[in-house]
C-alpha cells in the first residue's frame, strides 16, 4: 500500500508556505479583493521564496522540485486567498510550463528565467468568444509573412495577461487548414509567443468578475501583431494537442488549489462554530452544525486524496489523465459545496464581503469552470471508460 505521509521536504515546504500565507498574504487579502488590485508585493515575495520556480530545474532558474511541490504550495495559499493562488498556478502551469515543455533551448533561455523567479508573468490565450470548451472554434489566425507571424484575432478571459510584469502571452492561432477525407475543413492550430510590448497587442480593460478579484483577467485584441517566426512554440499544428497536455497537469494544480479552498472553509467554520453563541451555547454544539462541518471536512479530505493520487501517477510517469480529471471535478465541487456550507455556518456575516468564507463563496464558482468545466471533466472520464 502506498504511504500517504509527506516526505520531510514536502512537509517543510507545506509548513513554510502555510506560515507565509497566514502571516503575509491573509492580512492583505480582503483589501486586494475589495479594491480589485493586483497583489504585486505578494507576487514578488512568492518569487523570492521560489514558488514560481518549484517544478523547474535549477539550470532554468527553478527550485528543482516538482509539480506535487507546486500543488502543495497552492493548497496552502488557496486556504486564505484564491486570487494569489491562481496567480501562481496560472503563472507556472499556463505561463511558464508551455515554454519549458515545448520550447527550444533558445526559447527556454530567453523566456523562462524571469518566469521561474516570479519577476515576470506570462499568460496562455486559448479561449475565444466562439472557442470555449471546444477549442476547434478558434478564429484567431497567424500567417507567415517574410519570416514573421502576423496575428489577428481576439481572446477572452486570459489570466495574468495585463499586469505590469506580464512579459508575454502564448496564443493559439489557426496557422493553416487542411481537408479531411469527408471533405470538411480541419484547422491547423499552433501556439505562438507574443511579447506584450508588441505593437497591435492590447490587453483590454479587466473584467468585472464575481470573484478572484485580485487575479488579473483581460480580453485581448491582436491586430496585425508581428512576431518573429522563431516565436512558434512547439511543432506547427500541434498547438491544441500541446495545450491539452498542459491542461492535464494543470488540473492537478487546480485540484490542489480547490482543496485548499475547501479546507479553508472547514478551518474557518470550526473556529466560528466554537466561538459564536446563540441560545446560550456555541452554535457548534448543535449536531446540525457539527454534521455540516464533518461533511465539509470529508469533502476536503477526499479532494486531497484525489489530487495526491493524480500527482503520484504523474511523478511515477504513469498515465494520469483520468485521475487528474477526477481530482479537478471532486475538488472543484468540494470547494463550491464547502463555501456554501461555510457561509451558512457564518449566518449573516457569511454574506458580508470582508469575511474569508464569503470570499471563498464568490471565488469557488470558477473552480467548476476554469481549465475545463465540470462537464468537460465528466466527458474525459467517460471517454476513458470507453463510453
Amino acid at each position: 500500500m502506498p504511504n500517504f505521509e509527506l516526505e520531510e521536504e514536502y512537509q517543510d515546504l507545506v509548513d513554510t508556505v502555510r506560515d507565509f500565507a497566514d502571516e503575509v498574504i491573509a492580512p492583505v487579502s480582503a483589501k486586494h479583493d475589495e479594491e480589485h488590485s493586483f497583489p504585486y508585493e505578494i507576487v514578488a515575495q512568492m518569487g523570492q521564496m521560489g514558488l514560481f520556480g518549484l517544478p523547474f530545474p535549477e539550470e532554468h532558474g527553478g527550485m528543482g522540485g516538482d509539480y506535487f511541490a507546486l500543488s502543495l504550495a497552492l493548497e496552502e495559499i488557496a486556504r486564505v486567498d484564491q486570487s494569489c493562488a491562481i496567480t501562481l498556478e496560472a503563472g507556472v502551469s499556463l505561463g511558464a510550463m508551455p515554454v519549458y515543455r515545448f520550447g527550444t533551448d533558445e526559447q527556454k533561455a530567453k523566456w523562462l528565467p524571469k518566469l521561474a523567479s516570479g519577476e515576470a508573468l506570462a499568460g496562455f490565450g486559448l479561449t475565444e468568444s466562439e472557442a470555449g470548451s471546444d477549442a476547434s472554434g478558434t478564429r484567431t489566425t497567424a500567417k507567415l509573412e517574410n519570416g514573421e507571424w502576423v496575428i489577428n484575432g481576439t481572446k477572452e478571459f486570459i489570466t495574468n495577461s495585463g499586469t505590469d510584469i506580464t512579459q508575454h502571452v502564448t496564443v493559439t492561432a489557426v496557422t493553416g487548414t487542411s481537408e479531411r477525407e469527408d471533405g470538411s475543413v480541419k484547422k491547423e492550430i499552433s501556439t505562438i509567443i507574443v511579447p506584450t510590448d508588441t505593437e497591435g497587442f492590447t490587453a483590454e480593460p479587466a473584467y468585472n468578475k464575481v470573484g478572484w478579484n485580485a487575479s488579473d483577467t483581460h480580453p485581448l485584441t491582436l491586430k496585425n501583431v508581428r512576431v518573429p517566426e522563431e516565436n512558434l512554440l512547439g511543432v506547427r499544428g500541434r498547438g491544441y494537442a500541446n495545450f491539452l497536455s498542459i491542461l492535464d497537469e494543470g488540473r492537478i494544480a487546480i485540484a490542489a488549489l480547490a482543496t485548499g479552498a475547501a479546507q479553508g472553509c472547514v478551518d474557518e467554520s470550526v473556529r466560528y462554530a466554537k466561538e459564536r453563541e446563540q441560545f446560550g451555547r456555541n452554535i457548534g454544539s448543535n449536531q446540525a452544525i457539527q454534521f455540516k462541518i464533518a461533511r465539509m471536512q470529508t469533502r476536503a479530505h477526499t479532494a486531497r486524496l484525489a489530487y495526491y493520487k493524480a500527482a503520484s501517477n504523474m511523478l511515477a510517469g504513469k498515465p494520469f489523465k483520468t485521475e487528474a480529471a477526477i481530482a479537478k471535478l471532486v475538488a472543484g465541487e468540494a470547494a463550491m459545496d464547502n463555501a456554501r456550507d461555510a457561509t451558512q455556518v457564518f449566518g449573516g456575516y457569511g454574506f458580508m464581503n470582508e469575511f474569508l468564507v464569503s470570499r471563498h463563496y464568490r471565488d469557488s464558482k470558477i473552480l467548476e469552470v476554469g481549465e475545463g468545466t465540470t462537464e468537460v471533466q465528466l466527458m474525459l472520464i467517460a471517454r476513458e471508460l470507453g463510453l
Partner: protein
Amino acid sequence: MSDAPAQLKVLVLVKYVPDAQFDRHLTGESPRLDRSDSILSELDEYAVEAALQLIEAHGGAKAGHEVTVLTMGPAAASNAVKKSLQMGATRGVHLNDDALAGSDAAATSLALAEAIRHEGGFDLVFTGMSSTDGETSLVPSQLAERLGLPQVTLVSEVSLDGGDIVARRDGDTETQYVRAPLPALVSVTDQFEEPRYPNFKGIIGAKKKKTTPLSLAELGLGADQVGAAGSWTEVASSEARPARTAGTVITDQGDAGVKLADFLADRKLL
C-alpha cells in the same frame, strides 16, 4: 582599524520556543513549558537574517564566509537549527544534555559560552533581543561578559567597516551608530529587515548540511554547573495567567468618539 577577515565566521544563537500560535500550556507539576510544538524563536529569525545578510554583502558562502547556528536544548531544538539551515546558514551545532534542563540564564550562558569556545574562532556572534518564552534578555550580555567580547545591543542594521562592526541602534529620541572591533557580540531587534522564508532549494539543501551534536562532557562542564543545580535563580512559583478577556466593543450611535475617549481616560491613557 584592522582589515575585515578574509573569511567571515559568524555564529548565531538560536533558541527553540513553544509555537506562539498554539496555546501555551504548562505541563506536569514543574513550572516548565510544554515544548511539543516548538519552533525557532521568531526573534532569533532576525538574528539569522542579519548574519546571512552580512555575509551576503561580502560575497556569501561562495566567498568562503560561514554562518554557524548554535542551539542549546532537547532533541526537539533541532527544529530551530533546521529552520536556520533552510534559511541559508552553513552548519549547525546542537548542545543537548539531560543535565541542562532547568538552567536559568546564568547557567545557560555558561554552557553556551563553553560551546562557543569549543567551536572557536568566530568573528561575530549574533543573538536575538530576547527569547519569546523566558524573556529575560540576559543571555546575550552574560555571554559577552563570559567571552570578553565587546557587545552592541538592540541593533536594527549592521555592516562591516574594515575590521569593525558598525551597528545601528534606534532609541526613542535618537538613532546611534555604534562601532566595535571584531570579534564582537550583537543582539538584533525585530526592527531589522523581515526574515526570509526558506525556499524549496534551501529546504532540500538543509538536509545535506551538517549539525554537530555537543554534550556537556565535551565542553568539560559538570552536571552540577548547569541545570537547576548550576542556576543562580529559581522559579519560585508559576501559575497560568488568566486568559485575555474579550475587548470592549463600542457601537457607533453617534457618540462613539466620546465613549472611546472616556474608555481611554478611565485607563489614564488620555
